[in-house]
């Protein structure tokens, strides 16, 4: 409870920072005035239409990736599992790209998240099935690398073949991930998917605890294994799909957030989910605040910032796992 409260406070603090910090200098009183609809129209536009949706979207996506990573790790009993690593995010981005380039998004605003969810589901399902055959951590990561590269190739192909040739910048946005220019309308489309996904994964949480013992022993413990698998795969697809549909692929938050939280919840895979969501949200929102204030003409993509921090951490966890020869 204390942990959740601390993480919630941290999230609020980072979101607040996201309102106050940006390339255009606005004073504290200007931001407050803009928030409540008074003050300069320009300041209002910056705070209400640029900074607020952006930081909220970053938090929401981070939370989605954090809880998805925690749930996938519990299901696969592997601390390296995460939507990005396993190719779930890549396929989600592909689904969203297809919705945009096919013109479906213009006809039906729900098309990008629905497309993202559909392909994310296919990827999550394949990885779960393949993971059952390949027991160890490294093999699973390799399967994910393969799926991710494949998704990346298909995204490039889709953008290439698009009737209105999309700029290279689009490809970069989808494969590197960015919250630039996101609106509250995007958030309103993404949030329900993320919320439903989170609820499905939370329902599966006690089953993830039973899975600590392995699939067969968990079955003997009384677990309905297939129910847990379906809940997590659907939940991960919905949350990662909803998150990726509007910001593209952002890696490593799903590895880093649960990794930091795990010792604080006594390594309990069930209690890991909610704090990992809050931590993932705070981390990604913080990363977004940091990329705004970095010097330079072009802003660093959020996905790049996440990879710069998360990549080395991923390698470190993998090396530690290899040294231990797997988990306990």
């Amino acid at each position, binding site marked *: 409870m204390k942990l959740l409260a601390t993480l919630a406070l941290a999230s609020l603090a980072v979101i607040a920072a996201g309102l106050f910090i940006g390339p255009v200098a606005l004073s504290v009183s200007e931001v407050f005035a803009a928030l409540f609809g008074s003050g300069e129209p320009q300041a209002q536009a910056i705070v209400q239409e640029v900074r607020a949706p952006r930081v909220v979207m970053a938090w929401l996506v981070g939370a989605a990736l954090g809880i998805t990573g925690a749930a996938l790790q519990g299901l696969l*009993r592997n601390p390296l599992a995460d939507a990005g690593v396993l190719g779930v995010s890549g396929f989600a981005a592909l689904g969203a790209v297809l919705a945009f380039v096919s013109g479906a998004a213009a006809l039906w605003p729900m098309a990008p998240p629905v497309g993202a969810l559909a392909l994310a589901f296919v990827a999550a399902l394949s990885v779960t099935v393949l993971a059952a055959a390949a027991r160890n951590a490294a093999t699973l990561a390799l399967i994910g690398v393969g799926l991710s590269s494949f998704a990346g190739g298909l995204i490039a192909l889709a953008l290439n073949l698009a009737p209105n040739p999309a700029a290279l910048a689009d490809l970069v946005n989808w494969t590197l991930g960015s919250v630039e220019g996101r609106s509250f309308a995007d958030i309103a489309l993404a949030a329900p998917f993320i919320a439903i996904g989170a609820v499905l994964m939370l329902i599966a949480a*006690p089953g993830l605890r039973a899975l*600590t013992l*392995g699939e067969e022993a968990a079955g003997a*413990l009384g677990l309905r294994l297939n129910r847990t698998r379906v809940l997590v795969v659907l939940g991960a697809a919905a949350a990662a799909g909803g998150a990726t549909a509007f910001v593209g692929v952002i890696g490593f938050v799903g590895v880093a957030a649960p990794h930091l939280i795990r010792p604080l919840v006594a390594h*309990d895979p069930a209690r890991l989910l909610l704090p990992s969501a809050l931590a993932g949200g705070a981390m990604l929102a913080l990363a977004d605040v940091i990329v705004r204030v970095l010097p330079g003409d072009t802003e660093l993509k959020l996905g790049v910032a996440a990879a710069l921090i998360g990549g080395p951490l991923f390698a470190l966890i993998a090396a530690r796992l290899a040294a231990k020869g797997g988990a306990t």
Partner: protein
Amino acid sequence: MTVLLEVTNAVVELGGRRVVDGVSLSVDRGEIVALLGPNGAGKSSLIRAALGLIELKEGRTRLYGADPALMAPDLRARRAAYLPQKPEAAWPLSVEALAALGRYAHGGAPERMSADDVAAVEAALVACGLGALRKRRLDEISGGERVRAHLARTLAHAAPLLVLDEPTAGLDPAQTLAVADILRAQAGADGAVLFSTHDIALAARAAGRVVLMRAGRVIAAGAPRDALTPSALQDAYGRPGRLIGEGAAIAAVFD
């Protein structure tokens, strides 16, 4: 119901190989039955198939008169607790948290433990001599202590039938005898135990009945003294052996 587990003409195939080949076995209330046999005799496969954890190619298995493979998993877990041969824990939980997993089928979870849950976990930890280690993490204790922690998890089910696949592997002689006491307590409390082991002396001391397997078949069964004859041991293990001593001083020697 006096017959808790009944396996009839069980055949199990793994990877196209017939690892259990027509085995029948029953475990009654109050009984301790030991499964003996060399490596690869099919003991683990028989145990897993008996609980409906892997498929029976032929034959049938009944737990409380019903097919455990078709039973609701939580009902099965309240009737029979299973300890795998190499119990794993993907995460370094505390000893107490691992034992509490045994309450899963009763709806017990660390965030909501009923009085029954707390009592069952407590009794299991004490029975396994883990009272002082309850807060320790699984990666901070010895291999033998980990085995006992997994055994405590099994006891926490508070199931009438214990099915244990080599519960004393890696334990020292004193701890092995402590496990024998746990098995006797289970049988004495109107429960029953089916366990596999390579410790012939333990089987002879603790079990009322032994089932000796080789190459997927039963080659001898009955009271330890009657079943574990020199010829049966020779047949099973390929070396001449016999039981010596009496009661608590019983031992198996091979030439």
